[in-house]
């Protein structure tokens, strides 16, 4: 027996010794830095469960990089994008963030989608003094010197949505969400708002991420007969949720359903006919009419195909690259502290209209827009708020 075991060591040991001897010169490849370029990291999940949502954000960010380079770069320097795969795994995100800052010495990173990935990289960015642009709507409750939040925090959409719904659709709400921090926080804010509006909570339910069986919940919804379903389900579960709602005869035609995590992009997977008539609340729709958006949509489709659609997160990713460029030019430097300082009150004519960084909380002033999905998957806007001040730490 011990002989068996010993043979185990011998095999493994010598194998690795031999392998590492041969491979030694190639083990850690060194990145080369071309003259006249500035490195920018892109850190999203290209594989794993979240890749479904994140891959197209990379597309939008790469489009912005390409446009900026075609127009002469940032302060005469071309952007060299270094793409890393967070693989939908939070420790991997932390590893890759560290690699981008320490090894590649990138000036800034565009990245992360889920809150969990952002929380995992936050200490890395703070300790190594990196700079992250985070392009996804999220739950708020955070402010870091080293992160610029280019999408709406929860209060910037959900409060406006609740106000509008209570006024136009009724005051009894059924709230359903995936079981993690964004839906839970968003629903918490929604419930606080509901209390203020004097509405009634008809029910609430949480399901694990990736859950695909909603029929019991739908039976509960049928029994509760709410005026509005507030849907905070995210990702692939949305496809199941909408298909099953539809199959059970609950559609946008006979029931007010407002989703806070469904953009044009998600609808392409849900099936436009399943989402038709339901409501969404975002800061950006592909159908927005303004020159910046028309240019963005046209360029996006030209680069990636006419059947691709844009959406809120894509727009925020695209904006992030420009916001970083503008801040660097204003600061005349790529130094993180100077770029951050220059971002205060920085304005940009984005595809979602004029947006502006808050004076000091690293978030953007944004519009909340509510719209109805058309049968072709695009959105007809029904309500647009004024610019809302970002308030990541709301008093509830």
């Amino acid at each position, binding site marked *: 027996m011990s002989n068996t075991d010993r043979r185990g060591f011998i095999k493994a040991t010598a194998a690795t010794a031999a392998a590492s001897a041969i491979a030694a010169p190639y083990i850690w490849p060194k990145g080369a830095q071309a003259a006249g370029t500035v490195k920018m990291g892109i850190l999203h999940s*290209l594989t794993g469960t979240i890749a479904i949502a994140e891959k197209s954000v990379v597309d939008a960010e790469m489009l912005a990089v390409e446009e900026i380079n075609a127009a002469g770069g940032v302060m005469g320097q071309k952007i060299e994008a270094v793409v890393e795969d967070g693989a939908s795994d*939070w*420790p991997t995100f932390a590893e890759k963030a560290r690699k981008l800052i320490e090894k590649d010495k990138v000036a800034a990173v565009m990245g992360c989608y889920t809150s969990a990935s952002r929380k995992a990289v936050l200490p890395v960015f703070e300790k190594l003094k990196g700079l992250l642009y985070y392009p996804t709507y999220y739950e708020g409750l955070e402010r870091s010197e080293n992160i610029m939040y280019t999408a709406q925090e929860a209060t910037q959409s959900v409060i406006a949505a609740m106000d509008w719904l209570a006024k136009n659709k009724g005051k009894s709400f059924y709230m359903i969400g995936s079981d993690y921090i964004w839906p839970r926080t968003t629903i918490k804010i929604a419930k606080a708002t509901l209390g203020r509006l004097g509405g009634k909570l008809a029910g609430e339910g949480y399901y694990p991420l990736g859950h695909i069986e909603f029929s019991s919940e739908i039976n509960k919804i049928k029994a509760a007969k709410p005026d509005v379903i507030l849907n905070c389900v995210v990702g692939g579960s949305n496809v199941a949720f909408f298909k099953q709602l539809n199959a059970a005869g609950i559609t946008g035609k006979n029931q007010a359903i407002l989703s806070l995590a469904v953009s044009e992009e998600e609808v392409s997977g849900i099936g436009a006919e399943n989402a038709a008539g339901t409501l969404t609340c975002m800061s950006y729709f592909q159908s927005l009419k303004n020159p910046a958006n028309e240019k963005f949509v046209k360029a996006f489709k030209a680069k990636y195909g006419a059947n691709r659609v844009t959406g809120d997160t894509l727009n925020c990713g695209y904006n992030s690259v420009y916001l970083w460029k503008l801040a660097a030019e204003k600061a005349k430097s790529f130094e993180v502290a100077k770029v951050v300082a220059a971002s205060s009150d920085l304005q940009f004519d984005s595809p979602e209209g004029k947006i502006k960084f808050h004076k000091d909380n690293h978030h953007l002033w944004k519009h909340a827009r509510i719209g109805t999905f058309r049968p072709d998957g695009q959105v007809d806007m029904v309500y647009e708020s004024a610019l809302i001040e970002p308030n990541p730490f709301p008093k509830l």
Partner: protein
Amino acid sequence: MANRDLWGLLSRYGVVLLAILILLVLPLSLGIFRLGLLAKYLSLAFCAVGIVLIWGYGGILSLGQGVFFGLGSYMMAMFLKLERAAEADSSTSALSTFFGQAGLPDFMSWNSVEALPWWWEPFHHVWFTITAILILPPLLAFILAYVNFRRRVGEVYFSIITLSLSAIMAIVIVGQQGYTGGINGITDFKTFMGIDLDQDNAKIVMYYITAGLLIACVLVGQFILRSRLGKVLVAIRDREDRVRFSGYDPALFKAFIFAVAALFSSIGGAMFTMQIGLASPSLVGIVPSIEMVIYAAVGGRLSLVGAVYGSLLVGYGKTFFSENFVQYWLYMIGALFIVIVMFLPGGLASLMEKLRPGKSAKNAQAPIANELKPETR
């Protein structure tokens, strides 16, 4: 038993070679960033070493080592987080004044948890934490395994039990975010007993502690396998009924070895959290648990040392392929697994067997055939 040749030397001193590699060669040749990555792979290697014990020699396939890794990881994280919450620097105190609570971990504040839950309290103390990491997971593992093996739960059913456990743990952690940090896990630590964890010196020290503990675990594993206990274990794996008729209680032996593997995993989890700086449900669930088995399989399921090399190879492969071939790395990792199964059934360890002059490879095959459903083959 003519082990006088080079191979004999290598086999006898496998652990020594491993120690030289991870305690001398690699730390001296790698920069601090790569060393950090190495530390991550080594933390996971603890689980793989445990899996060699329970799977290779005990015949128990656990798809739930993530549970014990996670327990160690979260207990360490709770200690670090409490230490972080206690020292009020500018950003945390801004948050806690906003929520009107001081001294609470940040995620509790924003989940409106008013006071520290009672089961968090003891984790203020470092010795309690360390003791808990060393005792709780093995104890749980022992009870779980003993109870089930006493009932003579079959191998594949035990695998599903462990699989369910890791799924349950991930769901509960994600669902109880006020107490566990939810899907975000527990992140953002600063110090361990006042030592700044992010200083290069601290990192190097932690690396050496990890590597040293790992070597110690391999030695413990070796000691167990060479003792009479190990022989009974292999006998149980091969013919459980005969061992039982000889008057042994197989459940006791299997539960013991399962507890040892849980202990290793728990230590690995704690070291992981200290070095990577987070405890995450993504290391508890089913996928990481299966991956840990794969580390062991790649290394060779009968070789404790091989398990370490397996973890290093897969971990390094993932990093290397994904850094250099960001579009194609999954193909390469997938192909690696298939190639190893097809051409190196005993993992990396059997590579040596094949290279070994004048020896047949039958030894590497024999115990492997004896698996899942031996009675139907």
